[in-house]
C-alpha cells in the first residue's frame, strides 16, 4: 500500500495565476459588454427637459440640415415611414401646421423617414403634399440617437436645444400639434 503511494505520480495542487487572471478578466469584460448593451436597450426614450441629440439630416432633395445650426428655432422632428398606416393619420395635419408656421421663420419641421424604401417614400410625400424638409434616416443613426420605439413618433425641441415634448403615435388633430408648439414660441 505504501509502495503504491510512493510510486503514484502525485498531482500537484498548483494553478497558474496568469491563466486565472486571463480567464476571469475575459469573463468580466464579456459580462461588462452584455451589461452595457442591456442598459442601452432598456434606457427607453430620451427624456423631456434634457438636451436633444444633435444630428444632420440629408433630405431626399440632397439638402443638409444640421440641428446644431438650427438653435434659436423651435424644431419638430417627426419619424415616419411610407408603410406606416398610423403615420397617414397625422400627415395632412403636420403639413397644414408646417404651412402655418413656416412664414414665421421660428419653427422648423424635419421629417425623418425610418427604414423605408426610396420610391415609396417619395410617393407618400407626394400623396400628402409634404413640403417640409424630409429625408431618410441613413443607418438608423437618428432614430438610435432618439431611442425611438417605432413610427410615428414626434419630438419637439425648444429654442435652447432642450427636448420639450414627445408624442408617441400620431397626432389626433392640428390643434394638438399647435398646442405643443405654441407655448415654446412665447417670449
Amino acid at each position: 500500500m505504501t509502495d503504491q503511494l510512493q510510486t503514484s505520480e502525485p498531482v500537484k495542487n498548483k494553478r497558474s495565476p496568469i491563466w486565472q487572471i486571463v480567464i476571469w478578466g475575459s469573463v468580466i469584460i464579456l459580462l461588462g459588454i452584455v451589461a452595457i448593451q442591456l442598459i442601452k436597450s432598456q434606457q427607453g426614450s430620451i427624456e423631456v427637459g434634457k438636451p436633444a441629440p444633435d444630428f444632420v439630416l440629408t433630405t431626399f432633395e440632397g439638402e443638409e440640415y444640421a440641428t446644431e445650426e438650427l438653435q434659436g428655432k423651435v424644431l419638430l422632428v417627426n419619424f415616419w415611414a411610407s408603410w406606416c398606416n398610423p403615420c397617414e393619420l397625422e400627415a395632412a395635419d403636420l403639413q397644414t401646421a408646417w404651412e402655418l408656421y413656416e412664414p414665421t421663420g421660428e419653427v422648423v419641421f424635419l421629417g425623418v423617414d425610418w427604414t423605408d424604401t426610396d420610391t415609396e417614400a417619395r410617393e407618400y410625400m407626394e400623396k400628402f403634399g409634404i413640403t417640409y424638409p424630409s429625408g431618410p434616416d441613413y443607418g438608423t443613426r437618428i432614430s438610435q440617437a432618439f431611442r425611438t420605439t417605432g413610427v410615428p413618433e414626434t419630438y419637439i425641441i425648444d429654442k435652447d436645444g432642450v427636448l420639450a415634448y414627445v408624442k408617441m403615435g400620431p397626432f389626433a388633430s392640428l390643434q394638438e400639434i399647435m398646442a405643443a408648439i405654441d407655448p415654446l414660441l412665447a417670449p
Partner: protein
Amino acid sequence: MRNLRIWLLALLVVVAVYGAAPPKVVLAQDNGPQPTPSDDEVNAIAREMYCPVCENIPLDVCGTQACAQWREQIREKLAEGWTEDQIKDYFVQLYGDRVLSEPPRRGLNWVIYIVPGLAFVVGAYVLYRGIKTWTAPVVDEPESEEMADTGAEEKDEYISKLEEELKKRG
C-alpha cells in the same frame, strides 16, 4: 435490307433530336411567365437579411408591408444588374448592420465569433483538468522533512496496529 438500316438510322436521329426537346417546351409551358428576377432569386438574398421593423423574422418570410417593399427593392436592384454583395452593402448603408443575418466581422462583432469557440476550448480544458484530478490520487506535499517523517511514522504505526488486529481475528 440496306434501305431498312437507313430508315432505322434516320428514325434514331429523329428520336434523338426531338426526344430531348419536348421536356424543355413542356417545362416552359408549365411554369408560365416568371417575374424577372424571380421570387427565388429575390428570396435567396432576402433570407439572409432582417428588417428592423419586425426583428427576428427573416425578410423572405416576413409579411409586413415594410418587408414587401424591401423585397421589391431587392428585385429592382437585381434587375439593374447589382450583385448580392452590392445589394447587401446598399441596405447596410441605409439601415445599418442590423439588417444582416450574419453580422460583419469587424469591431465588437468579433466577440460573437470568438467567445463561443474560446468558451469551448476553456471548457474542454477545465473538464480535462477536472477528470485528471478526479482520477489521479492527490497527495499534499509535506511542508518539511520532519513533518514527512512524522507522517510516515504515524502511517506505519496505524498499519502495524491494523495488521496486528487482522492477525488476531484471522
